[in-house]
């Protein structure tokens, strides 16, 4: 069953210098129980997308086109009051610095109970019991409910926030870099806990991160974003064996692994596009080693490239040659020279 369907979404930010198109024409679906990982560099629109589903965009941001259909209803058309009822109860969010959003003058338990009471008809006693339940699910002792935020470590606070998000059995969990600020040992445990809870409750999850290895371990599906668009979507099993988009191929080269045995890392030369400009071609065109004139004039649409695999590239049929060439340093060095040359000509 489809839990969430995002259709042709456009999101703009109004700034002093003009309109920034943070998201353009993004569509994807999410099944009940599915977890999808969004990856991409800063500014690619992944956090904006998450916030738009919760309708938590900053004041200068707005959905200019498209639909966000959650359980059959379009969230874009909902009023503030209607959205407020869905938030937390049906969709819950954990953000990167969430642990700093705890109120320092209330105990953590009181804050969780407050959330439960605000959204349900539970009595205070029932809410307290529920808080204790979720604490034990996330691996915190019940007595910790009486702690104030300053008495807890970063890992514990982040856990408490996750417990809060889970307290009402939401259908959809949106986790935006939930473990980025934490040490690797703590991160590993929290990810494990999130994963087991998500499976137990059969919730769907949107997981946002820049770390593709985390997505590989905890998500069913990966969506690669670039310049406000989806470049590739595939099941993680397929993606990590056979990424198709040139940007994904570049990412794979650039990512160091603890298992590497001396392979050279190659980065993607250049910088992401300026989304203030009116971009007609492929968003990746400036940094793509395989571009043609077609890529400069026409944005490729996301299309089927195999089972469970969508790619936005004009040249999917050439992916074998691309994959081979992308492993060579020269391929990307040529892009670097091209960018330097363009700069010199421009200067």
């Amino acid at each position, binding site marked *: 069953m489809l839990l969430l369907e995002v259709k042709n979404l456009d999101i703009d930010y109004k700034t002093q210098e003009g309109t920034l198109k943070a998201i353009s024409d993004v569509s994807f679906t999410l099944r009940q129980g599915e977890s999808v990982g969004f990856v991409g560099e800063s500014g690619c629109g992944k956090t904006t997308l998450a916030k738009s589903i919760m309708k938590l965009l900053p004041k200068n941001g707005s959905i200019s086109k498209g639909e966000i259909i959650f359980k059959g209803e379009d969230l874009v058309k909902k009023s503030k009051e209607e959205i407020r009822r869905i938030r937390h109860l049906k969709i819950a969010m954990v953000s990167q610095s969430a642990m700093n959003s705890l109120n320092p003058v209330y105990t953590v338990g009181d804050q969780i109970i407050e959330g439960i009471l605000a959204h349900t008809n539970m009595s205070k006693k029932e809410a307290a019991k529920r808080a204790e339940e979720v604490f034990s699910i996330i691996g915190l002792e019940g007595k910790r409910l009486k702690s104030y935020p300053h008495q807890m470590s970063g890992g514990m606070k982040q856990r408490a926030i996750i417990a809060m998000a889970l307290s009402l059995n939401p259908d959809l969990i949106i986790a935006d870099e939930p473990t980025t600020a934490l040490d*690797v040992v703590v991160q590993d445990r929290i990810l494990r806990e999130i994963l087991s809870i998500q499976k137990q409750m059969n919730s769907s999850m949107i997981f946002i991160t820049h770390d593709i290895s985390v997505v590989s371990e905890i998500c069913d599906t990966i969506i690669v974003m670039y310049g406000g668009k989806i470049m590739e979507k595939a099941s993680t099993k397929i993606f990590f064996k056979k990424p198709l988009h040139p940007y994904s191929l570049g990412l794979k080269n650039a990512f*160091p*692994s603890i298992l590497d045995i001396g392979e050279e890392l190659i980065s993607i*030369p250049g910088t992401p596009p300026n989304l203030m400009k009116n971009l007609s071609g492929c968003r990746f065109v400036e940094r793509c080693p395989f571009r043609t004139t077609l890529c400069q004039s026409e944005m490729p649409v996301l299309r089927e490239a195999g089972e469970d695999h969508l790619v936005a590239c004009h040249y999917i049929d050439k992916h074998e040659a691309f994959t081979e060439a992308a492993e060579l340093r020269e391929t990307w060095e040529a892009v670097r020279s091209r960018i330097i040359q363009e700069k010199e000509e421009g200067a």
Partner: protein
Amino acid sequence: MDTMPLIQIENLKKYYLVNNGIKDIFSKEKKYVKAIDDISLIIKKGEILGLAGESGSGKTTTGEILVRLQEPSDGNIIFDGHVFKANSKIEEKKFRKEVQMIFQDPYETLNPRFNIFDTIAEPLKIHGVKNRQDIYDRVIKALEIAELKPAEHYITRYPHELSGGQRQRVAIARGIVLEPKFLVADEPVSMLDVSIRADILNLLKNLRKKMGLTMLYVSHDLSTIKYLCDRIAIMYLGKIVEIGNVKDVIDNPQHPYTKVLLSSVPVADPDYKRQSIIIEDEVPDQIHLPEGCRFGPRCPYSTEDCKNFDHTLFERRTDQWSACIYNEEELRK
């Protein structure tokens, strides 16, 4: 590679006095956070040493003491034959010329009101280079080494016009313009996007090759350490728990903490079945440290004997030292 040590650290300590309010001021017993507690290590000429550990392990403090941003509480640092004792006056200017640092956040290390030329020229001016042409040439050369090409295109720019990766390159150019012998890089890529991290890592590798630089690379990211460094030292609560060649330590960790750390790193391969070693994830309070081995309370292998352990490093394999009373075979039991 020359294997003479460039830097020898002997029994280095850094204690911070804890002052939590009126009670502590009047209390006779002084409480300390032991950020670094008696570590000794050697950095060889021309090598890149990786320093890893969780937050609070003392890795950043160690780096900052080596460039004298902080004074050690006790211990010696022998830099290229010169002994620097704790609390002794150093010839600061001369020392700073040979030792430079690159920081984590390229957005905060550059003065927004200095253009790129002035940013990189500043250290030269401070160190008495007066000839304008000379300054210009050296700035351009530093930018080119940092691979900001064409260099002339960048010198009139301001930090806000550059991307994170470009800013970090400017910080590196500033770090190398005086042609130092030793560079401390504290998490230089952790704020950067994955697609450009490799560039900065490759640049640091090249600096060693081109300028014969010796480097201390401080990071919590074991994958980048494996890529960049020759040797690695793992710290835990102010102590070194393991040190050795990077490949040996990562492929064959000897200390239980290293084993735990490595088992927690996610891997981008859905077929790879990672076996995490699960431990208590709360690090002990840094003021009330556990008796004996500091990792004892979280260690899956700990015994009564660990409470009397004094963190001696044992050579468990060739050039691989571990501060655990048990060797590999004993741990397996």
